[in-house]
């Protein structure tokens, strides 16, 4: 049949079969290009400019001088990040707090995920539901609720005073402890869900085989369950670690003036100092910090997937 005898619909269908794949893949790529790559390039550009009292509050990189384009790249912002110890402290603090939070989340999340994965059918969906349930309320409200719990006049202190266990209220809010509580609480589901999905897929008879071959239960866990749940541990840890590094709301609301994290520094540069170039440099540096573990994770995952085929 020659192509001009085809109806419009048939033509469209054939075109879709040929190009549909590109179209489907193209949409998310276009989205990422528009809302991720372009803003990123803008931030990158700003990070190489200089602050000035103007609208926008930075110098432009490209100038039309004498019929030629002059590009002025200012590395001063990055050098400034290195020279002022405030930034290094903030980065290290962020990474330390994020890392410790990730470990605590893992220690709490692993037994929970294991319990859910081994629960009976109907019980399992109820437990999973309970893990996801907090997402139905605003994150901000939940953090405020923690203020109410940890405050000087909060629930915990009120209870302990009433029970006569303490005579002076404990200082919990505006400490690093409160930041840990906030981060662990908020990100726990991100740890549990990937762990659950790897543990749930694991064949129970593998553990039985290990027991059968002479392993005590904890040995079977260490030799079989733990290594086989590594992909879940990695995925969960990165899902917690990466956003925790850049966390702003939790340290701002629960942390004290001493809990210096990079998210807060970023906020201060942008809104308090109105130094957009420095703020952009801070953001780019943080991105570079995080890209490394993400790439490493990707690498491990592809290797794992290759291994399973």
């Amino acid at each position, binding site marked *: 049949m020659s192509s001009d005898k085809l109806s419009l619909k048939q033509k469209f269908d054939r075109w879709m079969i040929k190009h549909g794949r590109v179209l489907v893949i193209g949409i998310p790529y276009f989205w990422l290009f528009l809302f991720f790559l372009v803003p990123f390039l803008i931030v990158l550009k700003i990070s190489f400019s200089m602050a000035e009292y103007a609208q926008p509050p930075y110098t432009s990189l490209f100038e039309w001088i004498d019929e030629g384009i002059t590009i002025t790249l200012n590395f001063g912002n990055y050098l400034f990040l290195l020279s002022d110890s405030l930034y290094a402290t903030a980065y290290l603090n962020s990474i330390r707090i994020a890392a410790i939070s990730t470990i605590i989340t893992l220690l709490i999340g692993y037994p929970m995920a294991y319990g859910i994965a081994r629960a009976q059918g109907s019980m399992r969906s109820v437990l999973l539901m309970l893990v996801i349930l907090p997402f139905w309320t605003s994150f901000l409200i939940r953090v405020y609720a923690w203020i109410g719990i940890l405050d000087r006049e909060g629930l915990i202190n009120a209870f302990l005073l009433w029970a006569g266990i303490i005579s002076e209220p404990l200082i919990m809010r505006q400490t690093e402890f409160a930041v840990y509580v906030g981060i662990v609480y908020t990100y726990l589901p991100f740890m549990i869900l990937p762990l659950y999905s790897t543990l749930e897929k694991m064949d129970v008879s593998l553990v039985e*085989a290990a*027991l059968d071959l002479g392993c005590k239960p904890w040995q079977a866990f260490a030799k079989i369950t733990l290594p086989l749940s590594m992909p879940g541990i990695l995925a969960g840890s990165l899902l917690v670690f990466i956003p925790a590094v850049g966390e702003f709301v939790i340290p701002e609301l629960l942390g004290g003036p001493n809990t210096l994290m990079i998210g807060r520094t970023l906020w201060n540069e942008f809104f308090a100092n109105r130094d957009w170039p420095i703020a952009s440099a801070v953001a780019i540096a943080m991105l570079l910090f995080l890209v490394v573990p993400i790439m490493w994770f990707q690498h491990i995952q592809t290797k794992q997937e290759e291994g399973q085929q």
Partner: protein
Amino acid sequence: MSEAVLERVHEDVHKTQPWNNPDAVPYIRFENVTKKFGDFYAVDDVSLDIYRHELFALLGGSGCGKTTLLRMLAGFEEPTSGKIYIDGVDMAGVPAYERPTNMMFQSYALFPHMSVEQNVAFGLVQDGVSRSEIKELVADMLDLVQMTKFAKRKPHQLSGGQRQRVALARSLIKRPKVLLLDEPLGALDKKLREQTQFELVNIQEKVGTTFVMVTHDQEEAMTMASRIAVMNEGVINQIGTPFELYEYPNSRYTANFLGQVNLIEGVLVDDDEKYAVIKSEEAGCDIYIDHAVQGHQGMTFWAALRPERLRITKEAPADAKYNCVSGKVEEIGYLGGISTYHVRLESGKRIKVTEPNSTRQIEPRYTWEDTVWVSWEAGAASVLNK
């Protein structure tokens, strides 16, 4: 026969058939074992003796309790009541990792993050065997199951049959007193299964371990096992050698489960010390049995007739008083070596007959709607009362 010869024959029988020797000590003993899951009786008051060097098969449909029985032996389940002994030792409260049993899992349960070698060595490493000894034992075991070439591979790089061998090697390497096999050939295709059946029996003879195997496949059980326990709804229906079970089933369930059978219902009308006659409306003839039947006249019995013990002819046999019915050929299955015929009797009962095609035919012997006679010997039927 002289006394001495008789004695030797007895000794021989006692050696190869310890279950017929009243003095033999069972190696594995289930004593009134019951396992309940909630209100459900998975295993209901089972007593069973298994002897050393046996290849014992637990045979039954899904949910009959055979796997639960095996898992109780392995230590993955504790009996609700009753006792299990292995080599005289009470297994109550002994955890799986301290039992002298090893299991080959239905899914094989090979550790996906370890190589073939590491999988096989796992049990020895766990026991703290020295590295040089492990190396030697693993090499021997891989040689036994012909997997030496694949020692460095990971389980996902193996075919189904190769995985099965690795699983066998892994469960045999600790020289368990009892090897438990859960549907050992279930995941293999038919051809490979037949080949592996014999290999498994050979390996069992070589290593001399007692094997207890669970299967739903009667052919597998019959080819491999020294004795079979037929299970149904948590209860053992019958225990015996493949021969005993096939030739002397004790119930319609066993008769049906092992091989094919025509069950014909009737009433005992005449019995004597040497013969019995069952009147069957279903068959439309009287069934003459050449031995006595336990029961009284008027009781309902079933004559179990194997399809291959029936003769099919165009003419009525000469002395057609007993054991002979006519019907119409309803279905024909030509399988090359044998043919199967479904014959519809006047009562509406359908009878299956198989006949070997032992001579070359110019055209098929019978065709649809042919009127034929089905007859059998007086000794062909086993008489069942349940």
